[in-house]
């Protein structure tokens, strides 16, 4: 039994699993976060993987990491890890910088061979002192030896035995955090339901890891994590990309319009295509087209034909889709464009995260081309905002660009599966019979929303032509008249502006007497919220609001923001949202915290940034 003095109680803990791309680190991390979520922990995960599919084994460039935070008040995967699991010398070297000063390293000491040390470019044969680590905080586990001893008589071959090394590491981690082995076994049973021999081997190895920790390292403190109280319901674990796909499916169910996706593979958005391609089992038509342009164009065709039409992409693909999106603006067709932002410009940092497509989304088209721009703030919020994007597109007859990013798209959280009544019905702006019979023209508008009607092919007597040429406001036929053009430009702009009538107003948090407000948008929510919480806890009064609706902004944005002496916008670019907001708040100084490193903010960077700006 462990001594009570050796148990450390904390709110949340961060574990980082690092190894070769093929080491199964993501699976180990994923199981750990899921068994924590099952007992009510909040969870947040972040995969950090290289652009290369399989870099040479043991090399620095081939290391992939998977960071997991579990506990109470978890909004980010954590700035730094309490525990680093390093499967080889390269993983230790590249990931040590993500470990807290007093953090613990679990490593496979058997992998520290001269050859592997050389591959990882160590100068000496003593990595612990070379990297300046405290030997007391390193759990050197002879994983390979343990594996072989455990599975000696299993009948499995060498390759199969090595594949279960991740379960040995997970066993040690479970011991460290007082997680019962049985909860992991249930997961493994599901995963290897059809391979009983593999299940048995993994189960044995997992126990061996737990026992090893228990028997040999009982002097290292064991963490007991506080559990958060969550809203009652049925939960599952979801990534941002999967949540995006599911939000679209719910919107299809709630609107009665079948779902069509036209897409082309691009990192880090491809998982949306993967998920929707699987969801043919729910009637989704997901087609992989020949290029990004065909992706958006097939969606425009499907939209004209009456489907909830979507295209998914990342920054370079959005650039290619610009002209097509302009057509949807002009033809006033519903279209959802998902842009999972990554590092740019050009090919940039394909697997890393950034918020640098905001200006492209808002303005990246020829002509006066307004459309609705939304952003999702977390992996689970991708579900909600994908639903919103589809709702707005179909109710307001406009293209909508939803900005997510690599960080929330690949990150995961525990997510409460919506109950049947949780989401409202969507009312697509379909041409009603009485309007048709009253002499309808294709660009007649609804008085309140300014939206034109969706007349779906197959409908008798509603045959009409749409296209990229300007149309007459009254007759809907081609028009090159200047005054008419200006009127149509204004009408399209006003239609998008009126979307604000149906979106939530802004209601800042920590608003009690603060004269400074911290603002963000999109996927930085977790880090900014944590920073704002810490700032207020330390006596620094800072209100906080994360924007999800970008164009149009919430109706009361200018009114609310005018109340603050200091407005600080923190974002992962050089100031795009700050500039956009500035155009709505002329004369008001907007302070900025920016980062463009392809990585999310660290909470401490935001806290320090706010403190610095307040002191100035």
């Amino acid at each position: 039994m462990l001594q009570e003095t050796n148990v450390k109680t904390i709110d949340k803990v961060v574990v980082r699993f690092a190894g070769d791309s093929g080491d199964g680190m993501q699976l180990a991390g994923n199981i750990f976060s899921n068994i924590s979520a099952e007992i009510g922990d909040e969870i947040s995960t972040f995969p950090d993987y290289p652009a290369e599919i399989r870099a040479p084994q043991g090399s620095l460039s081939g290391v992939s990491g998977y960071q997991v935070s579990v506990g109470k008040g978890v909004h980010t995967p954590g700035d730094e890890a309490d525990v680093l699991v390093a499967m080889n010398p390269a993983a230790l070297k590249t990931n040590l910088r993500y470990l807290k000063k007093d953090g613990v390293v679990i490593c496979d000491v058997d992998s520290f061979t001269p050859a592997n040390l050389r591959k990882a470019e160590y100068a000496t044969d003593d990595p612990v002192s070379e990297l300046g680590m405290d030997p007391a905080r390193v759990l050197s586990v002879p994983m390979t030896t343990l594996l072989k001893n455990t599975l000696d008589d299993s009948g499995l071959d060498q390759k199969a035995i090595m594949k279960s090394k991740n379960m040995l590491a997970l066993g040690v981690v479970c011991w460290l955090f007082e997680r019962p082995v049985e909860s992991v076994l249930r997961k493994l049973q599901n995963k290897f339901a059809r391979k009983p021999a593999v299940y048995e081997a993994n189960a044995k190895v997992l126990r061996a890891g737990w026992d090893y920790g228990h028997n040999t390292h009982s002097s290292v403190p064991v963490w007991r994590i506080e559990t958060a109280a969550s809203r009652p319901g049925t939960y599952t674990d979801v990534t941002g990309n999967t949540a995006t796909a599911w939000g679209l499916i719910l919107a299809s169910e709630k609107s009665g319009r079948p779902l069509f996706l036209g897409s082309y593979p691009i990192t880090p958005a491809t998982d949306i295509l993967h998920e929707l391609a699987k969801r043919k089992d729910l009637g989704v038509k997901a087609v992989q087209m020949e290029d990004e342009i065909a992706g958006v164009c097939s969606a425009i065709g499907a939209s004209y034909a009456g489907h909830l039409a979507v295209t998914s992409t990342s920054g370079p693909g959005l650039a290619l889709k610009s002209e097509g999106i302009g057509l949807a603006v002009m033809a006033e067709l519903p279209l959802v464009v998902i842009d999972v932002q990554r590092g740019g410009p050009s090919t940039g940092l394909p697997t890393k995260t950034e918020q640098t497509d905001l200006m492209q989304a808002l303005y990246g088209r020829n002509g006066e081309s307004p459309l609705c721009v939304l952003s999702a703030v977390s992996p689970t919020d991708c579900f909600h905002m994908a639903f919103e994007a589809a709702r707005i597109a179909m109710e307001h007859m406009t293209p909508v660009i939803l900005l997510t990013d690599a960080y929330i798209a690949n990150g995961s959280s525990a997510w409460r599966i919506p109950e049947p009544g949780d989401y409202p019905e969507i009312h697509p702006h379909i041409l009603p019979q009485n309007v048709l019979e009253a002499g309808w023209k294709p660009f007649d508008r609804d008085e309140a929303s300014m939206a034109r009607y969706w007349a779906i092919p197959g409908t008798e007597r509603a045959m009409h032509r749409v296209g990229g040429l300007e149309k007459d406001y009254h007759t809907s036929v081609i028009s090159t008249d200047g005054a008419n053009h200006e009127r149509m430009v204004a009408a399209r702009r006003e239609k998008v502006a009126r979307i604000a009538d149906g979106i939530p107003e802004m209601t800042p948090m920590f608003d009690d007497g603060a004269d400074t407000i911290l603002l963000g948008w999109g996927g930085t929510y977790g880090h900014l919220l944590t920073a704002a919480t810490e700032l207020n806890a330390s006596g620094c009064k800072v209100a906080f609001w994360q924007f999800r609706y970008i164009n149009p902004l919430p109706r009361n944005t200018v009114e609310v923001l005018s109340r603050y002496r200091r407005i600080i916008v923190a974002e992962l670019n050089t100031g795009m949202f700050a500039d956009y907001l500035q155009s709505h708040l002329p004369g008001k100084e907007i302070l900025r915290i920016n980062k463009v490193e392809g990585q999310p903010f660290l909470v401490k960077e935001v806290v320090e940034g706010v403190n610095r700006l307040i002191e100035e």
Partner: protein
Amino acid sequence: MENNGTKAYTASDYKNSQNARWCPGCGDHAILNVLHKAMAAIGVAPHDTAVISGIGCSSRLPYYMNTYGMHTIHGRAAAIATGVKTANPALTVWQISGDGDGLAIGGNHFIHAVRRNVDINILILNNKIYGLTKGQYSPTSDRGTVSKSSPYGTVEDPFIPAELCFGARGNFFARSFDMALDTTREVMEAAARHAGTSVVEILQNCVIFNDGIHSYFADKENRAEHTILLRHGEKMLFGKDNSRGLVQEGFGLKAVTVGEDGYTLDDVLVHDAHARDNFLQQQLAMMDGHELPLALGVIRDYDAPVYDREVARQTEEVKSKKGYSGLRDMIMKTHETWEIG
């Protein structure tokens, strides 16, 4: 007017009140009129018909139709038409593109639509010139073409639309020209009947920027000797009084006069548009009207699996096999879930 339970339509049902704004004498006027008639003969209701075009003179055509229609962006008609048809396979979808729209900027979408075999009818109105931008050479302009953007003549070879279609593994290719009204109508109707991508090249005269480019075969006095109308199952005969015929010579084709040099009617080839092997069809399609007559009519018409039907079939199949009642049901049945009370 009811006829055997289906309404019979006339050409005027497909025509709207807009006046076509092409130049007087442009071949597009004739093609539009024939399309109205062909659609009436095909009998699909105007409200079940969608006409999708790109950008260019010929791409204005949907504005003169009383069907559903979209005048889209340059080169993308095939991709948009693919979306329309895949979303709703019950619609009859036509694509109207010129040689620039369909084969230059839209070349990629063209070959992939053909490869997928999505059930759309692609009319390529080929005048071998860019008209709407006032006279630049196109990807079908002959080597040496002098135009505003090639004042000293082009130094590049053109695409032969048929060759591109065959190269993309096309299953239907037909050809006509603007003045051959009956043949144009015949191939349009055949294209509509064919399930899968139908490519119809209609050689068309641009009176302003490329006048007479097709005269060597299209003018009345040249037609008999310089064109051949192919019909499935019929002898490949042409010329005045069908006196001439095509025979096989080695791997190639040869035009002979029946009854001369020892050639009899038995030597003349019979057209097989339905053959899976496209070798002979391709040779026929490549005849250019100079040494061998330009082939008109349906050159290839082969049945193969159709993309939009396959998408619908697979979706239905997977859906009924799994039988989920909706998103929530699917998640509960396929994902690890846990209750928090």
